[in-house]
């Protein structure tokens, strides 16, 4: 059994890659990290939506993570300053067997829940078993990501052992998911649905109150297992509409909004508040994608789908749209900059990513002629959300017009958009991808056959893509995995059931008083606030 240190092979097993290029305007957090943290104060931040309930295992939105993450510990977590390196949270150390099928974790001693009870391996086991095999009536949104787990064992109170049925290259990174909160085994035994209506974790902050539609508070947990942390006395998450956030940041009523602002809002706050705010920017682990309804004519013909993808000048879009929207980098199925993503040289060889747009459009028109499609008129189904959906949709419409395709923009309220997508009642549509970490097993779900991945609304059935996906998931050799991912990507772009338009940029505005917070490409990560402190 080879020992994996948190900074060694582990990072390679997980998702190493280009470090987040966090450009910080105003006061940098790096400078903040160099200062001595100050204790005290309450951090007030805005959240533009509200969690429906309190159960980490059942939720999927940032609106849940931002207020709830400070209350819970995880087994592992991503090191925000060195993303995508994984570090221990409850786990003090861990080992992985040579065959990659047994993961053994030693827990920190003396970890307490907020009610004073001890957190042991039994609690970790109960929490993961709840995710992997949820009891009746319990929703586990990420059950499928742990389908490789054969058993969770607890040889002693400080040790947890996960045994896998087969190799899973993403397993360790999935254990660092911010959604895998560790609950009390006793509470779950008494009521498996306890976490839906109660917040009782072992994280840096105890639950204060949640006033529906108004705010959520947390207070420092003095029994937190990391000595000296957290620095804040508490936090206050205020639920507000996006339109109110900009004013609140500019007026100093909130000190942060951690999801991200549009460029115009970022600039307005920066211009209005001047040196009272700091701006953090990084590539965002989210992309805008174009989905073709492969069950509907003429999109059942791969030539038509590829032709429409070829017509989109993504490089021009990247320059133009980045000025007015959160859209920015050109990338394939994985985030540009991530180590398993296609390089620019590889990308430009794929259909729709070449830099000679005239040649691409000529090819597109040829493909349409070959498919016998002339004077094509289609609907583009989109959400009625300006940033970035409407902007992306309008750009796509203009691009398709250049090859003689007429597109009607059908903008729907999110619920109706979701209904149209699920029922297949659309021609082509704007959708998005996004998750908490860079990893093909998570990030490629929108490109798999609909039967396997219900969030791919194209209705595609492509056994080759599904096979390549399964192969890369079980491949722990990084180079071989990269090769499989590239093969998957080429196939996906050629078949063009779903194609990327652009990836997003993330801009987070904080008061300069806020220190110790690190930017990552995902708005789901680094929200436990344990390291955050206030300068005054």
């Amino acid at each position, binding site marked *: 059994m080879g020992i994996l240190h948190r900074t060694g092979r582990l990072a390679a097993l997980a998702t190493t890659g280009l470090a987040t290029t966090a450009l910080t305007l105003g006061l940098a957090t790096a400078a903040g990290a160099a200062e001595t943290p100050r204790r005290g104060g309450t951090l007030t931040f805005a959240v533009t939506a509200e969690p*429906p*309930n309190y159960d980490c295992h*059942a939720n*999927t*939105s*940032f609106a849940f993570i931002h207020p709830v993450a400070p209350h819970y510990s995880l087994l592992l977590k991503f090191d925000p300053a060195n993303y995508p390196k994984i570090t221990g949270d409850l786990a003090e150390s861990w080992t992985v067997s040579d065959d990659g099928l047994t993961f053994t974790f030693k827990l920190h001693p003396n970890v307490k829940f907020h009610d004073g009870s001890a957190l042991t391996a039994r609690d970790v086991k109960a929490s993961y078993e709840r995710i992997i095999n949820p009891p*009746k*009536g319990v*929703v*586990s*949104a*990420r*059950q*499928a990501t742990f389908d490789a787990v054969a058993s969770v064992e607890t040889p002693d109170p400080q040790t947890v052992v996960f045994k896998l049925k087969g190799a899973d290259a993403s397993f360790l990174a999935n254990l660092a998911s911010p959604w895998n909160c560790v609950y009390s085994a006793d509470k779950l035994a008494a009521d498996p649905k306890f976490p*839906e*209506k109660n917040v009782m974790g072992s994280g840096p902050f105890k639950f204060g109150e949640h*006033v*529906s*539609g*108004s*705010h959520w508070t947390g207070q420092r947990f003095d029994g937190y297992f990391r000595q000296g942390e957290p620095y804040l006395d508490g936090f206050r998450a*205020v*639920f*507000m*509409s996006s*339109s*109110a956030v900009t*004013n*609140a940041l*500019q*007026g100093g*009523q*909130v000190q942060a909004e951690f999801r991200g602002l549009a460029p115009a809002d970022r600039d307005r706050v920066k211009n*209005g508040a001047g040196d009272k705010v700091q701006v953090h920017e990084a590539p965002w682990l989210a992309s805008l994608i174009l989905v073709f309804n492969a069950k509907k004519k003429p999109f059942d013909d791969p030539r038509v789908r590829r032709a429409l993808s070829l017509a989109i000048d993504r490089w021009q879009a990247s320059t133009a749209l980045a000025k007015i929207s959160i859209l920015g980098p050109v990338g394939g199925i994985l985030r540009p900059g991530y180590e398993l993503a296609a390089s620019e040289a590889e990308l430009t060889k794929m259909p729709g990513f070449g830099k000679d747009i005239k040649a691409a459009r000529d090819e597109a028109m040829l493909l349409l002629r070959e498919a016998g499609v002339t004077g094509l008129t289609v609907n583009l189904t989109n959400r009625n959300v300006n940033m970035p959906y409407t902007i992306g949709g309008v750009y796509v419409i203009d691009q398709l017009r250049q090859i003689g395709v007429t597109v009607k923009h059908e903008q729907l*309220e*999110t*619920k*109706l958009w*979701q*209904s*149209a997508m*699920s*029922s297949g009642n659309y021609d082509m549509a704007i*959708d*998005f*991808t*996004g*998750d908490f970490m860079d990893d093909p097993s998570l990030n490629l*779900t*929108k490109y798999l056959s609909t039967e396997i*991945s*219900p*969030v791919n609304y194209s209705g595609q059935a492509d056994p080759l893509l599904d096979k390549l996906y399964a192969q890369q998931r079980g491949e722990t050799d990084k180079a071989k995995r990269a090769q499989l991912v590239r093969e998957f990507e080429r196939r996906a772009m050629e078949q063009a059931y779903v194609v990327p338009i652009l990836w997003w940029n993330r801009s987070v505005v904080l008061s300069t008083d806020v220190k110790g917070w690190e930017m990552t490409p995902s708005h789901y990560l680094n929200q436990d606030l344990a390291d955050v402190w206030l300068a005054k």
Partner: protein
Amino acid sequence: MLSYIAHRLGMIVPTLIGVAVLCFFMLRIMPGDIVELKLRGDGVAVTEEVIQQERARLGLDKPLASQFVDWMTGLATLDLGRSLWTDKPVVEEIGTRVWVSLQVAFMATIIAVLIAIPLGTLSALYKDTWIDYVVRVVAIAGLAVPSFWLGMLVIMGLLLLFRWLPPIETVSFFHDPIRNLSILIWPALAVGYRYAAVATRMMRSSLLEVLKEDYIRTARAKGLYERLIVVRHGLRNALLPVITVIGVEFAFLIGGLVVTEQVFNINGIGKLFVQAVGRGDFTMVQGLVMLVAVIFILVNLAVDLLYGVLDPRIRSKA
């Protein structure tokens, strides 16, 4: 009069049953699935099995007739059910927010009445003079400018001119009246201005009509003071349509402050309404529709009773 009130109160029950039935079936016609939105809305590949389990948990897999019976029997016991989004009782969700919306509506009504009645009266009495022109410009501007946009201007003005913004979290008037008023006065002003504009126009035209009536001419012929004629005979009668407008506007404000509540970050009924509709939270929308229906009915009743107070002919007919 008492039998009239009893008759009106008796009509409330069938009216509400009609609203409840219509609301239930109209919501079910709308496409969209709250469970899909909740679990797959952020792009997570939640399995169909999990989706079906959650639908069953929320009772959405039951036949429509069974859901309807549940809704109507719940209504009979004043149980509006639980929100499909938060799983909290609808009454609780509405209860924490309704007081804020009611307070803004009351404050806006007071502002509107204080502005509309004097200005409308002045405008009518000084018809086609500069006073009338000024009042008409102010009123038409109030009709033309959307309340939420005025609200945004107010916020920006406070921020740029005074480097101050109202607090972002609403508190109860009884807990901290100064903080409460410092938050709610701004949306009340923004909404009250438009409200006042509508009432001012109505007050002006109504008073102009009344002042042309025979009984006013008779009063003048009798040699009564002009002030007495206007106040006792003119205003009293001219107020009848104005009261109707005020009543309708007040009821509308309870659920209609959607954007204004968002601009000022007020945790009110309008914001809840929009969220519930956007999510397809049927039970919450049903509860809110019933609340607004009750308020409309009660406000209409109050307006009719006020008619009786102001107009003896109506009182005697009743």
